[in-house]
């Protein structure tokens, strides 16, 4: 919820708003420190954190991912614990046992993050380590295998994309070259062949068209389907029906009549009203319409 404007380094109190290039690093306690402060503070290999006083080691700094110090702290602790508590689901006979195991891990992490029974918990972890050394080592190697497999898959996918791209480039080059050679062939034909000029040109055009179609067919197969969107319900198209009113009087001249018969010459509209769009024809038309309304009532 903090925005980056408020990201302060806890050593020198400069914010990333003031200096956008500021790089923060975090340590075991989760508190951010900027590059400069780290260099200044860690002349010796260890130094206390300016915020909470825990002893930090110089080579334990890493890039910060989250703004919240507690979260960073927890990430660190979690990584360490999971290196030790690394049993997998298939190591357990019953699902409930696996759940209990997971809950134990979470409790340990929570305790260590929030400083509850720290010594006890650390002792517990040590004991577990000693007891299950063999199991831990085996699982670790298994994890490594799993990770390797994933990284290999990712590498292969990247390779495939590369290959595709190169192929496309080659194709384009090939096409350009072909076109060039076709043109040259055409020129040669025009100069040396015994067939007439028109025939040569017609031939050329035909071959070009064929190639073009072939390319389009290929493209069409790879293109996505074009979807035509239609509205389900068939509504009636709106047709404009002009309003018919009976003014119970003789027919008033229309705007066209007014202009043609020069009624409008006898109308003067003030300059200010012209600005509002009140044309003389409108005023004229209105007055005459009112003069004829209900004349025969």
């Amino acid at each position: 919820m903090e925005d980056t404007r408020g990201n302060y380094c806890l050593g020198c109190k400069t914010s990333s708003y003031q200096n956008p290039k500021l790089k923060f690093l975090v340590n075991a306690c989760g508190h951010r420190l900027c590059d400069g402060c780290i260099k200044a503070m860690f002349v010796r290999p260890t130094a206390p954190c300016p915020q909470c006083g825990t002893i930090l080691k110089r080579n334990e700094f890493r890039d910060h991912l989250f703004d919240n110090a507690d979260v960073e702290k927890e990430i660190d602790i979690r990584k360490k614990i999971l290196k030790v508590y690394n049993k997998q689901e298939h190591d357990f006979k019953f699902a409930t046992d696996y759940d209990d195991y997971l809950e134990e891990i979470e409790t340990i992490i929570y305790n260590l993050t929030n400083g509850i029974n720290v010594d006890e918990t650390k002792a517990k972890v040590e004991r577990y380590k000693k007891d299950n050394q063999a199991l831990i080592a085996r699982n670790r190697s298994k994890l490594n295998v799993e990770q390797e497999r994933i990284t290999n898959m990712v590498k292969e996918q990247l390779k495939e994309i590369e290959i595709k791209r190169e192929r496309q480039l080659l194709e384009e080059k090939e096409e350009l070259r072909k076109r060039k050679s076709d043109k040259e062939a055409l020129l040669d034909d025009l100069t040396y062949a015994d067939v007439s000029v028109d025939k040569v040109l017609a031939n050329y055009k035909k071959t070009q068209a064929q190639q073009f179609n072939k390319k389009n067919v290929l493209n069409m197969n790879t293109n996505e389907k074009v979807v035509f969107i239609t509205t389900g319900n068939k509504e009636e198209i709106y047709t404009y029906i002009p309003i018919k009113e009976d003014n119970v009087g003789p027919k008033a001249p229309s705007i066209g009549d007014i202009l043609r018969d020069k009624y409008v010459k006898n109308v003067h509209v003030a300059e200010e009203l012209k600005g509002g769009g009140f044309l003389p024809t409108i005023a004229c038309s209105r007055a005459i319409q009112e003069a004829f309304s209900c004349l025969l009532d």
Partner: protein
Amino acid sequence: LIGYGSSSLWTVVKSYHFRKVSKMYHTSTQRKYWTFRDEKEISQRKNALYADFFKELEDKNTSRIVELPTVEELDQLCIFYEFELLDLCKRFDPPMPITTIATAIVYMKRFYLVNSMMDYHPCDIMLACVYLATKVDEYNISIDKFLTMVPEKDKERAKSRILGFELLVMEKLKFHLTIHCPYRPVEGLLIGIRTIIPESVSKIDELKSNINNFLAKVLHSQALLIYPPSQIALAAMIEAGQNAGLDLLEQYLKQHVMRDISADKYIQLVKKLKDIQDMCHRSPSRINLNKKAKIEEKVRIYRNENHNPDSHAYKRLRDEEEKIFEQRQAEKRTRLARDKKQRESKLLR
């Protein structure tokens, strides 16, 4: 000069729930609800309005010092106040447009077609009508500025009166607030005449002044409640033309406007125009102050005190109403409290 800065252009008012109609006279509420067949119908309605009231008074006491006012006298009083309205509006600065004034007068006419003058006195209603008309016609003026133009000594009283009666007037007018006046049709006809009959261009000023006189006179008659504004405008035009020496009836109307219309419809229209002109000549004039005082005295004696905001009867009525209202509220409160107690006791049990 035609300035159409005000209310919307001839636009089509389209709404998805109602028919599509335009804001013109042939689709207006004026045509639908407030146009009557002739003067006889109007006077019949007025008589019906006062019939019960006068009958009651007649039955009450046979001997009285002052006579009851007749319907004609009340009409004359109303017309007097219309003239007062005109004088009031002429005092406004910037000058109030004629459409606003006409709107106010039509409001008054309509109001006293559905309400008795014994219930609501014209001097209050007149102010409320003018204020309402300024709002409707977009001649916006604040109530305080409005009161500076009004010759009332007690401004506070006038203010409360106007604002109090404004809603009442709207309600009695059934909220039909758009009035179609003959002024724009007159403009239209003038444009037509100048285009079709070139000789009229030189006589335009004379025509205009005659038309204005005609319309000012016809405003006080019943014409705006009976005839469409286009016909009134045409009648004004034709008479003005006659006075200026142009036979507009023949040249413009018959040969140009009505050239595609059947002959009998033309004859009907000409007859109507004649009637309007006749009505204008008979248009009532302002009665003198003596007469007005007499009528007002009669009105003061016999008015329905329940509606007069100054009277004791009115105050008493309002107090009674409030008392009843308070009583009902108190009853409601006790009832609610009792119900609540019952519910709570049930829960506790």
